[in-house]
């Protein structure tokens, strides 16, 4: 598999084989997504621009935060929509015979537990570092709130990523 193919699989979190049909389907969906993205951006920026010019604005900081939040949410929704279309079209689906599929599922569980653990610890350290304020790093690190949010992140992120990957894995009978 070429580096470009590996990047495609990593970027979309796909499990299936990257073959020419995969790339063709991805190309079709990506073109439509780009059109939707462009349309949404134009409508949003035009309406936001009109509001900025016509309405009396005093607090530009809040306005910038709202703009950032809308952009973040809009981009995420469009990207997730693209992912769901690709999964629905079975582009990312990996089909395996039953015995191999069971082994892959076990590996997936272990792999996402490991990744979620690393992400959870990174989140815990970063949250403690960002929020230390007057309390100091270690006091914030062992504060119940910091630990709780890191555990929530570990569970939610790990379970979601495992769920998405598991959804793409199908068991088949290898007799056709």
């Amino acid at each position, binding site marked *: 598999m070429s580096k470009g193919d590996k990047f495609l699989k990593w970027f979309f979190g796909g499990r299936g*084989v990257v073959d*020419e049909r995969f790339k063709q389907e991805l190309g079709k969906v990506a073109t439509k997504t780009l059109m939707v993205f462009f349309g949404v951006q134009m409508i949003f920026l035009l309406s936001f621009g009109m509001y900025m010019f016509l309405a009396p604005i005093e607090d530009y900081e809040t306005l910038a935060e709202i703009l950032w939040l809308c952009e973040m949410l809009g981009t995420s929704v469009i990207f997730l929509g693209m992912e769901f279309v690709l999964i629905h079209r*079975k582009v990312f689906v990996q089909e395996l015979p039953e015995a191999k599929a069971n082994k892959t599922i076990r590996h997936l569980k272990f792999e996402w537990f490991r990744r979620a653990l690393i992400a959870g610890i990174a989140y815990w350290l970063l949250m403690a570092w960002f929020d230390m304020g007057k309390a100091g790093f270690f006091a914030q690190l062992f504060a119940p709130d910091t630990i709780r949010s890191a555990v929530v992140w570990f569970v939610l992120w790990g379970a979601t990523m495992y769920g998405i990957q598991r959804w793409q894995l199908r068991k088949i009978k290898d007799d056709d």
Partner: protein
Amino acid sequence: MNHVREYRKAQKLSQLALADAIGVARQTINLIENDKYNPSLDLCLKLAWALHTDLNTLFWRDEDE
């Protein structure tokens, strides 16, 4: 209709085995066999080599078919 399915069965290969042999997904083989996907020339050649036949035998059809 192409002849991929009959040549694959003659070689006693499953769709998955053939897909693994030429480096594509099983769904791609299934779509090709059901005439729902037009493979590239490169993929046609790989199929012909894997099934020990030639492009004409696998894919040729008359104009009125």
